[in-house]
């Protein structure tokens, strides 16, 4: 009640000089781009442009497959993408087999966390990339946790009025409230015959700036054709 009164007084004092001084600057409708994973797009409505999307989960949960799918979808639409690879783990062969146009993908191979942060900053400042993927999955957890929240908000501010999508891949949720969409991935069973056929991945919405759907998770089957 106190805050409502304070707000009314402020608005009347500032009058016509500033319209709506204590409301959000802009309630933008976030444009979305598809991930290439149809069930996930149906669940989330796609990845919001001008915002951060985070995928996190343990090894073999399908994070890299989601990343490859996002890049494949973007490069198929002639957009130029960048991958800031935290530990030089990207496999171009399986990415190309999954449909990523490698000549539209800028691959930056880093070895240290500060290189990842500086490079991401430069790429976002430079602008013009459809997707910038920041892959932190293989970096030590203690290092990843040490990234200050201010860095994420800086990234978010840099891209918020641009069509760039910043995708962060991490072992655990680190972007917190700076992310527009946070997705947890988990492996839910593998499919073996005499060889590895695929795996089931569970993708759950942890945080979304959009209205939360009735169902908060989706199960995706990832086959092994492109790696064998």
């Amino acid at each position, binding site marked *: 009640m106190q805050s409502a009164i304070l707000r009314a007084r402020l608005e009347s004092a500032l009058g016509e000089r500033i319209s709506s001084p204590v409301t959000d600057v802009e309630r933008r409708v976030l444009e979305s781009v598809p991930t290439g994973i149809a069930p996930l797009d149906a669940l989330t409505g796609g990845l919001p442009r001008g915002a951060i999307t985070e995928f996190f989960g343990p090894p073999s949960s399908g994070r*890299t*497959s989601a990343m490859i799918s996002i890049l494949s979808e973007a490069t198929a639409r002639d957009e130029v993408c960048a991958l800031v690879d935290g530990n030089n*783990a990207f*496999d171009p062969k399986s990415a190309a087999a999954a*449909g990523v146009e490698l000549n539209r993908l800028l691959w930056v191979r880093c070895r240290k966390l500060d290189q990842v942060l500086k490079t991401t900053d430069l790429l976002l400042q430079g*602008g013009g990339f459809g997707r910038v993927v920041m892959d932190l999955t293989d970096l030590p957890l203690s290092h990843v946790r040490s990234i200050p929240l201010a860095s994420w908000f800086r990234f978010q501010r840099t891209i918020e009025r641009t069509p760039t999508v910043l995708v962060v891949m991490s072992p655990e949720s680190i972007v917190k409230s700076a992310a527009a969409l946070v997705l947890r991935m988990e492996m839910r069973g593998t499919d073996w015959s005499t060889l590895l056929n695929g795996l089931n991945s569970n993708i759950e919405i942890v945080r979304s700036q959009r209205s939360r759907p009735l169902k908060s998770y989706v199960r995706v089957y990832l086959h092994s054709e492109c790696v064998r």
Partner: protein
Amino acid sequence: MFACIYIPNASGDAHAALVHCAKMFSPRAENTSAGTVVFDIEGLERLFGSYSEIATKVAGEARARGLEANVAVASNADAAICAARGFGGITVLNQGTEEKRLRDLPLSVLSPSPEILETLERWGIRTLGAFAKLPAADVSDRLGHEGIQLHKLARGAGLRPLVPHVEPLRFVAVTELDYEIVTIEPLTFILSRMLDGICTRLRSRNLATHEVHLSLGTYVRVLNLPLPVRNPKILTKLLILDLEAHPPGVEVRRVEVEAIPAKPRVVQSGLFVPLSPEPEKLELTLARVKAVVGEENVGSAEILDTHRPDAFEIKKFGVINERGLKPATTGPRSIALRQFRPPFEATVQLRNGLPMWIAFHGVHGPIATASGPWHTSGDWWRPTMWDREEWDIEVLDALYRIYYDVHMDRWYAEGVYD
């Protein structure tokens, strides 16, 4: 009116001196052939006097350079050339008198082809006057197009336009310093000023540059750009980033910058063009990223045409211009492999030839499922040969690719399926 300077059997230096001599009188000078330079002297009377005075002054200039040249003035370039080649010293042919004055000159002044010269000599024709008397239609029938051209020249009736010699444009700036520079930072201001001037000159000729040569005394760097640029700020920043990555390591007393000119990029933009970085800005961003992670770690991957595992190379990244709508891929998705580079050495326990337990880089435990072996080998004739048996395994709710190196007799973890 045209003047011609001629020296028989001129060397390269002598010819260059002739061109320079002609350029002192007129910017419209034609580099006709070795030892022959023709230039336009129309309208120079107010500056240098009558045509005979101009011819005398030209001969004097040539003499000052140590050259004894024949100088001829005529109403057309070809008549001037014939006169300079045929008469010694200074010759002035007034308009309308060319045919009469040239008639006693030998055919060699026309520089005909050996076949035509031989034919004319067989006919008993040895002077321009004799050749000019032949009917043009018959000359055309017997000697063809070249014969007609020579016939016109023999009558002193050349009408071709002059083809002026244009010096190749060079965009160079040089700064001599009073004191040595040992750090890169002060160079920023010097390079900025020099490139500003070069880019202004480039812009005035509607040109840009795709190659910049920087000489710091004996230290030389060449900056190759994927597309022509004429923004001095971008060029300065790129040169400074390049110098930071490759420091000169010498004291700098002299700075020379040369921009190789190129036609500027013309882009038709559109409303529905997909998102891509501006090429000039991208080049700067890439240079900055290279300064952070190293040049070899930035680019786009190119898969090599081999079955060797993890075979790729990094090539320079540039925005691709060709576009085309491709079907978006929304089918079933595939597992991706994350590579361990270099692979982790692993300890593997086998039972009946199947891996049962593994330990590597913080991962250890029983293998729940294993699929393999997939045997691959190649390049046996090279030192980089490989021979291995690959397995897909499930350990502690994660899927890995491991392999047994047959030659090393060791196990390695190559990557994780994710």
